[in-house]
């Protein structure tokens, strides 16, 4: 019989199980996430048109990237719109969602009803959200123009349609953040609030000095979700006008180049790679923060 090596010793079967638990998910991740991602990066250096074997594709170096940034007019507006999207989600929608969560946490009467009402849009797909708001924004039959008598073309006019889309998107995002944050607030130890109260702190101070710091893990999750959702924003703009005419986003540019009849796979992959790099920047910030927390 083997010598007892302490409570941490693993039996042979344990080792196999642990091994499988590591290897199988790793293979899945490599196969389903890394391989397509790296494939996409590689394709971005070719001129593949999606027809015929991939071996026909010609390696053309960084020409796709040069073209994207220099002669493709929708690119820079798309970057700008993505950043505006991020800023609005981060500065308006997310704080507002948090605010609603704090309000609802105070056991108002009918809090369940409010929760459901605010959370409802999250259940709807963004495509459906786009359609619902179409009824409100439509130039000739929409609610806003019927009530105010204006003739603004909310979805068609490039001066307004980004903001109109942001309102629709925020409507959904607020509910999402509210739910996440509410769940976090419920988990805060009540004795902390009581202690703060005993020390004579008012509501405001209690929230910002005690509750908010305790909620750090949730804050990070909310932050990451906000960033990721903003950068990959796509569905809503696609439903409204295929991401053209004032609603260009990186996600819609990738789709219109790769998926449609155009099949500029190499070119679209280059935009996708730029999007990947941009997202990685934020993800790297997040990971760095997590690492620092752990030390």
């Amino acid at each position, binding site marked *: 019989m083997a010598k007892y090596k302490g409570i941490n010793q693993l039996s042979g079967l344990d080792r196999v199980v642990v091994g499988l638990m590591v290897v199988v998910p790793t293979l899945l991740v490599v196969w389903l996430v890394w391989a397509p991602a790296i494939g996409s990066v590689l394709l971005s250096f070719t*001129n593949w*048109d*999606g*027809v*015929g*074997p*991939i071996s026909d594709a*010609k390696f*053309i170096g960084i*020409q796709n990237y040069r*073209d994207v940034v*220099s*002669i*493709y*007019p*929708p690119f820079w507006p798309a970057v700008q719109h993505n950043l505006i999207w991020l800023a609005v989600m981060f500065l308006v929608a997310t704080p507002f969602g948090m605010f609603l969560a704090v309000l609802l946490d105070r056991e108002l009467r009918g809090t369940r009803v409010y929760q459901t009402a605010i959370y409802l849009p999250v259940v709807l797909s963004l495509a459906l959200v786009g359609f619902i708001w179409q009824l409100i924004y439509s*130039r*000739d039959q929409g609610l806003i123009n019927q009530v105010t008598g204006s003739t603004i*073309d909310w*979805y*068609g*006019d*490039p001066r307004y*349609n980004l903001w109109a889309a942001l309102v629709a998107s925020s409507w959904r995002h607020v509910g999402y953040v509210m739910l996440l944050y509410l769940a976090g607030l419920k988990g805060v130890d009540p004795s902390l609030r009581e202690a703060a109260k005993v020390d004579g702190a008012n509501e405001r101070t209690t929230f910002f000095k005690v509750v908010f710091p305790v909620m750090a893990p949730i804050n990070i999750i909310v932050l990451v979700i906000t960033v990721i959702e903003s950068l990959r924003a796509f569905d809503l703009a696609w439903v409204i*006008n*295929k991401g*053209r*005419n004032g609603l260009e986003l990186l996600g819609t540019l990738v789709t*219109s*180049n790769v*998926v*449609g*009849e*155009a*099949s*500029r796979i*190499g*070119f679209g992959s280059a935009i996708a790679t730029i999007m990947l790099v941009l997202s990685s920047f934020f993800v790297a910030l997040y990971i760095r923060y997590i690492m620092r927390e752990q030390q």
Partner: protein
Amino acid sequence: MPRPATQDEYLASLVPDSVKGVSRRTLLRGALGAGALLATPSLLAACGGGSSSSGSSATGTVTLGSNQSDAVPKAAVQSMVNAFQKANSGLTVKINTIDHNSFQENINNYLQGSPDDVFSWFAGYRMRFFAKRDLAGDISDAWKGMSGMTDAFKKASTGDDGKQYFMPATYYPWAMFYRKSVFQKHGYEVPKTLDDLRTLGAQMKKDGLVPIAFGDKDGWPAMGTFDQLNLRVNGYDFHVSLMAGREPWNSDKVKKVFDTWAGLLDLHQPDALGRTWQEAAQTLQQGKAGTYLLGSFVAQQFKQGAEQDDLDFFGFPEVDSTIGADAVEAPIDGYMMSKRPKNEAGALKMLSYIGSPEAQNVLVKADPSVVASNGKADTSGYTALQKKSAEFVASAKSIAQFMDRDTRPDFASTVMIPAIQQFLKNPKDIDGLVNSIEKQKQSIFAS
């Protein structure tokens, strides 16, 4: 599923149905169907073997992929297929209708996957492209003994290698549509030249009408306006060269097209970028707009009967008297055969039927917004609009397709749609616009 009694039974249940009882032939076919990646010439020869004779022996099922998803054309295809099945008792046709836009957007994957034996498509650059890239089947056999098709249609159906890959069914002209009652009420006359059009437009504005209805939310309708102006300003040959990438987009000729258009924009319905062509057609239908430059499918927004009878059109007026106005745009819709049809004899039979007057009589009767491509088709049942469309195209000296059918689709959709929308937003900066188009064109056409 009941609990398996033995381990063998359990293992057998894990095998999906598609793999059970696999023979070499089905495996082969499956591999071919799954992707052209595996296809080598020897395999192709082995698979398509010996069924190329298009005699009367064709039996079995033919699959037909149709992009005619709107109610009216869909019913037209159905009645044509019914007539075909009646005439050929051994053959059944299975129609697979796919949403029009999705079909067009997924055409690459569709053709490289497992396409239907016969599928709907358009004449033009894209048809020749599929033929060149070995994604479409040679249907020269179906053209043998075809009568009633003019050489122009045969030419439009021929690939770069001189073989036929396309069978025209119907076509429709692009023109300026108007309501006869509105023109009568105000005493308007059909404009012959651009100046006439401007004068007419000014009068319409005074009468409280939108001179030219316009909607470009989907991006492609405005291509029609560009094409018409280009055909009038520079002529048909230039259109063909420009679309083929042989002419620079930043030349004075193209600038003149945009300049002319800019001069007409105040006659166009404003806020076009948020409006679909259907909505724009409604303004014409409601008598709020005087004219509308579109394909004759605009009639689909008009009720059949009195309302469609009130619809009339005229060719886009002459801009330059040295160029004239004898070039028209009339996209041809038709059918092609996939590279490896499961029932080649049946598919060829179906295609030669589609080109026949009998089939086209059924099609144009069910959808009066199009006209038959076969000259022997019965025109006695045509509506006034159809008669006029047929004459209009027959009298034209040259027939263009449409920007997104005459040029590379990647160029049309990723460069021209945003570029024309940009022009509509800011018609002032034509130099910057055409330079940007030219730079992108060089990059795309070089690859």
